[in-house]
């Protein structure tokens, strides 16, 4: 129990330090941009592929149920709601947690146990600002962009399935799809993706930066970064959906 409260205190301290270092100059612009590239550009291929498959398969699975009621014309709007409100932010976050979160945990963990972080400190560089702040900022800013991108690609996947079955035109499909999407849906997509991005970056950095016990600690840090961030993403999804449904819809 004592260890649990100690962990909570350490997380609190880490978070306070993050916000302090993020707002106090000097800023690590170059490293933040570098991390934008690492998190964003290097994840584009997998996000494109999974987004397309998600949209395609989800449409295919939903078709039979809607066909029973002769309601296949609802597919575009149903897919838009499912993808924008739930699938795109959630699937993007889970993929980034697995790909980027584990990478951050392993990278910082290995830097910690091989004294590279201390080497940075004695080189008159603030390693927290350089390594932690830049990565958390990058995941927080890039996950919403990737989630929005995945929503579009997912809709494209849905369109392919609808076009193959109903020969609906591209314009007609997207007109029907977006008729049910509101500004709140888009805003919630962006905000909750940012929350997931922050969670992924924070879990990766916290576990990596505090890694110990040599190479075993590095593996443990990478593993914890993924497990903790995925668990938190589901908890956050539940809370955000409850809040939005109660107060914004």
């Amino acid at each position, binding site marked *: 129990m004592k260890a649990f409260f100690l962990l909570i205190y350490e997380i609190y301290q880490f978070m306070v330090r993050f916000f302090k270092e993020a707002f106090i100059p000097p800023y690590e612009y170059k490293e933040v941009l570098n991390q934008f590239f690492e998190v964003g550009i290097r994840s584009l291929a997998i996000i494109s592929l999974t987004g397309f498959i998600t949209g395609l398969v989800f449409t295919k699975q939903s078709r039979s149920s809607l066909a029973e009621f002769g309601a296949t014309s609802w597919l575009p709007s149903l897919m838009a709601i499912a993808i924008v409100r739930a699938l795109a932010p959630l699937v993007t976050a889970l993929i980034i947690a697995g790909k980027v979160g584990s990478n951050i945990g392993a990278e910082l963990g290995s830097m910690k146990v*091989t004294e590279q972080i201390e080497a940075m400190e004695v080189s008159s*560089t603030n390693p927290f600002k350089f390594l932690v702040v830049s990565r958390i900022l990058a995941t927080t800013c890039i996950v919403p962009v990737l989630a929005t991108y995945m929503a579009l690609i997912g809709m494209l996947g849905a369109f392919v399935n609808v076009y193959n079955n109903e020969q609906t035109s591209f314009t007609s499909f997207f007109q029907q799809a977006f008729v049910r999407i509101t500004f709140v849906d888009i805003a919630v997509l962006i905000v909750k993706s940012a929350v997931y991005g922050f969670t992924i970056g924070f879990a990766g950095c916290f576990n990596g930066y505090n890694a110990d016990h040599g190479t075993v600690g590095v593996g443990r840090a990478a593993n914890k970064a993924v497990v903790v961030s995925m668990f938190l993403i589901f908890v956050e999804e539940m809370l955000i959906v409850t809040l939005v449904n109660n107060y914004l819809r």
Partner: protein
Amino acid sequence: MAAATQGNTNKQPHPGIDRNNAVIALRGVRKAFGPMEVLKGVDLDVYKSENVVVLGRSGSGKSVLIKIIAGLLRPDEGTVKVLGSEIDSLGTRALQDLRSKIGFSFQNSALYDGMNIRANLEFPLVRNKRSLTRKEIDDAVAQVLDDVGLSQTINQMPSELSGGQKKRIGIARTLILHPEIMLYDEPTAGLDPVTSEEINDLINEVQESYKTSAVIITHDLTCAKSTGDRVIMLAEGNFIRQGSFEEVFDSDDPRVQHFYNYNFITKT
């Protein structure tokens, strides 16, 4: 007392040592990790242009001592003055400025895995001297690589280098800022005898060329004998002997004898 000879030479005290100018001064430094007290009130003066070797068994607190000097760890008690500044009283910016005058060579070299050798060497330079031109940076990198004899490795990754080369690059990375003080943490650990001797020679060359003072943490007697102007033996959290290499080991203290015998070296 001794078992075998390693052909090492005994270093003569450097003529430039200024005994009136202590660049590092520790007074009553204590440090504990939980119930284990690692340093029990250590006093130390390191003079300008002097190489001080701190010898001790693994886990005796040697690395803790230099991490305290570099400000990476805070002592529980006592004062640490480096180049006239008390480390504990310095703000972040002042501590960073002071650290740019201290070179720290880590036991495992601590080269940045994700950067090639050029980027590793540029890193401290571009972050401390932002006004430098590209040419000045390139010249500085070429100079330190030449000083450590590894100019050909400039575009290689750390993973492509041998242990000895990594140590040299680690030292080069600290030299690029022209530090006044060098801190070496186990500079010859894990190296074969020939490479160890090369590193020992490099430490002496750095002292000569860069006019540095140094604290060298080691358990290698050959390294201590070849590089130390003064040798200090650390055991059970205290300095138990200090002086020249011969003075330290001319002792009946069983802790000193035990340490000496296990290093397979003669006193001559």
